[in-house]
């Protein structure tokens, strides 16, 4: 009788796309358990010997134009559909748009959409939306490749619109106002961006899987991903429902210039803790945008990237708010930061981006990814799920090892007699007054209570301890440099001291 030999572990590679480079992870699969082994940053296209790697990428750019009726609630639904699909909304034309037929056609031609979503919520809107489709035919008839058209909404109107757009490739989808329609549209968009390679997992899908896996452990989870060219906010509930906003192009790297267009120069500059003139900052932003995977070698460049990450986060949240997802994508008991915002050397910088960018009103335990490990793990899980398997058992142990909390963040509006209690012990070292921002040294689980306020929470603190944020919401920065810069320096110092103070 011989003992049955354990099969050797199977090694695979997961390539997580950065801007022009890759974070190449080696993973080991033994007895159905996935473990992350090691990683390295390599140039994209570097040859690889072995199985075809699983590639986590952004997919192709999908420029989307929307032709729809004029109802305000419809716009919210459309924005939600576009945010879920990760597409770039290049044009939104309502049936009551004041522009002439020619101007609408010119706008569609200039927008060069890859996909056009035509939505008629009611039958009586069909006539006016047919006019928009005629403008599409006039403007984009000779576009190469021709845009694809997706028609949705009222069944009768949809058939009329389909006939009007017959010179293009047209498909009918469920109404995106229904959850199944929203999901179908998001999948359609992702199929377009992914292409036909079965070994590609879109970063959006990996982030949603990460949120789902973490939420399955018992608490709703929010993933905040700021990358060079895109920003995502994803929330998963314990029951597995996912709400997501994937905004592109908006980020701290190759989309830095687009972030500045959205936020304005002063919007970005206000987060830099020293004085900098606008033209100088704009030149740095433009150079960064045209230099994929550039490394900030000097403190001024790092401060710029942090400022861009702040604004990318808050504008992604603003987009989510315009789509009616404001609270869902801000206040969760667990927040995980991934991407470029998680790659700053100092943990405190990541924490500041998440705290200030989201300006959440609820306590949250903050985590951050290291070297895109959680994203790689989630991509493996998404791959398993798409093949019909259960990813939780395969990646659950490794996920638990990799999820290390960095801080418990407690936003609070203190009263005159409010006292901070951590695990029942009153904290007197820092003054709890409106405007205060400080960190209490602590590691591990903590019960935090602020007397005289509704704050009574339990979470897990890490390297940065428990961060008490009494600066108020919405977070207001002084306009004048003479007040703004000392405030920022104080906030930076509050967290850095906590880092250096820990043994």
């Amino acid at each position, binding site marked *: 009788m011989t003992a049955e030999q354990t099969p050797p572990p199977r090694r695979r590679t997961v390539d997580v796309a950065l801007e022009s480079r890759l974070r190449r992870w080696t993973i080991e699969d033994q007895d159905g358990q996935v473990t992350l082994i090691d990683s390295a940053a390599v140039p994209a296209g570097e040859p690889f010997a072995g199985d075809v790697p699983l590639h986590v990428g952004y997919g192709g750019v999908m420029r989307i134009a929307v032709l729809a009726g004029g109802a305000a609630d419809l716009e919210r639904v459309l924005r939600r559909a576009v945010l879920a699909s990760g597409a770039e909304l290049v044009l939104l034309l309502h049936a009551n748009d004041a522009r002439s*037929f020619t*101007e609408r056609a010119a706008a569609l031609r200039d927008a060069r959409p890859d996909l056009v979503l035509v939505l008629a919520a009611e039958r009586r809107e069909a006539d006016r939306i047919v006019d928009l489709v*005629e403008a599409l*035919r*006039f403007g984009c008839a000779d576009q190469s490749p021709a845009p694809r058209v997706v028609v949705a909404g009222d069944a009768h109107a949809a058939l009329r619109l389909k006939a009007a757009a017959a010179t293009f490739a047209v498909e009918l989808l469920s109404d995106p106002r229904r959850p199944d329609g929203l999901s179908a549209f998001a999948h359609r968009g992702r199929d377009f961006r992914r292409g036909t390679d079965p070994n590609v997992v879109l970063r959006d899908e990996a982030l949603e899987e990460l949120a789902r896996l973490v939420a399955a452990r018992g608490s709703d989870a929010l993933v905040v991903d700021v990358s060079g060219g895109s920003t995502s906010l994803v929330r998963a509930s314990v029951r597995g429902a996912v709400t997501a906003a994937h905004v592109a192009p908006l980020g701290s790297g190759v989309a830095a210039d687009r972030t500045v267009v959205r936020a304005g120069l002063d919007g970005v500059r206000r987060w830099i803790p020293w004085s900098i003139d606008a033209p100088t900052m704009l030149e740095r932003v433009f150079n960064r*945008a045209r230099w994929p995977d550039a490394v900030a070698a000097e403190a001024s460049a790092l401060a710029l990237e942090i400022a861009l990450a702040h604004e990318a986060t808050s504008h992604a949240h603003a987009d989510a708010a315009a789509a009616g997802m404001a609270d869902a994508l801000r206040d969760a008991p667990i927040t995980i930061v991934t991407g470029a915002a998680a790659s700053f050397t100092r943990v405190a910088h990541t924490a500041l981006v998440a705290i200030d960018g989201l300006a959440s009103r609820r306590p949250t335990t903050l985590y951050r990814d290291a070297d895109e490990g959680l994203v790689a793990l989630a991509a493996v899980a998404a791959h398993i799920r798409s093949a019909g398997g259960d990813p939780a058992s395969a990646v659950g142990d490794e996920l638990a090892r990799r999820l290390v909390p960095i801080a418990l963040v407690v936003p609070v509006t203190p009263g005159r007699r409010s006292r901070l209690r951590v695990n029942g012990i009153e904290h007197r070292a820092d003054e709890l007054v409106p405007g205060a921002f400080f960190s209490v040294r602590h590691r591990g689980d903590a019960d935090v209570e602020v007397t005289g306020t509704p704050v009574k929470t339990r979470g897990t603190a890490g390297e940065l301890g428990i961060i008490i944020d009494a600066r108020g919401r919405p977070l207001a920065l002084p306009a004048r440099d003479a007040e703004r810069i000392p405030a920022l320096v104080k906030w930076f110092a509050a967290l850095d001291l906590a880092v250096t103070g820990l043994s």
Partner: protein
Amino acid sequence: MGWQYGRWVVDHPLPLGASARPEVGATVRAGDPLATGSLLGSPIRVDGARRLGVEPRDIDRVARVPVGANVARGTVLARTGRRFARAVTAPVDGRLVHRSHEGDFYVAPITGSWTVRASMDGTVTRSDDATVSVEGSAWSLSAVAAYGPDAFGELALGVDAPSDALSPARVDVRMHGKILVGGARIAAEAITRAHACDVAGLVAGAAPAGGLRVVYGDDVTASGSATIEDRPTILCLIGFGSGPLPNEIYRPFVSFSGRRAAINVASARLFVFAPEALLDGTVEAPALVLAGDFGGVRALEGPTSLTGVTHFASDAYCEGLSTKDGVVPIPNVLPYDAPR
């Protein structure tokens, strides 16, 4: 790489309303009108198939005017040939711009005209209402971004050395119609002065991003923007802020001075129409280095050596490269023609 002689295909996107464009196979010259068209006013929709009592798919059979044709008020657009004829006529002078899938006609008044000029000497390889493509041979230099309309003219040097900035004092009306080559930087004032002096275009290592914002608006990005309006044309070769040109890039400008050239904004390329033998095409441009504060781009010159994982002033740890100007992160060094 840097300067390259070869065959290039240049696309020229057309605005709406093209009325004349070359046939495929036609020969064109950079700067010559390639396509012309009309600026259209708000069109009037005229009932077609319903009024004529025909099916929309039969409207072709009864139409008398092709889409795209100019029409005078009262021109018969379509007519049924029955004994009791029914006709549809143009309500205004203008152009029949579109026919709907339901068989209706759109007639738009003409409010102006536009012209798109070729930015390549060569042969037309595609011609439709959306794009005309021209294939030809030329010396070419890729750039990081371009702004404004396509530009054509003789190349002229505006600086004495590749590290000089193009100053407003060097721009005057004698530069009219020329493409002016700056060095490391174009002063913001030089952009507006060049436009006032009718200079065709400006080429330099870098342009001031703040100046671009003033000229092209707050929405301007680092990717450049092609326009057809009357704006200055700027080609940024290596970056923004300051970008001293390496000699391998600057010297050919001296050789090309006085030659015809074109800036194609959509592809951010400079084309120079000069014989292939004029330059040694095997000369490689040096790699480029992004400044540690992202404030400028320069050529990598002098001896270099790897320093391994290095701790930088920003607290970042990264593989470094020792250069004559200090240690730089490896990702901040890219070949001249690297996609970015």
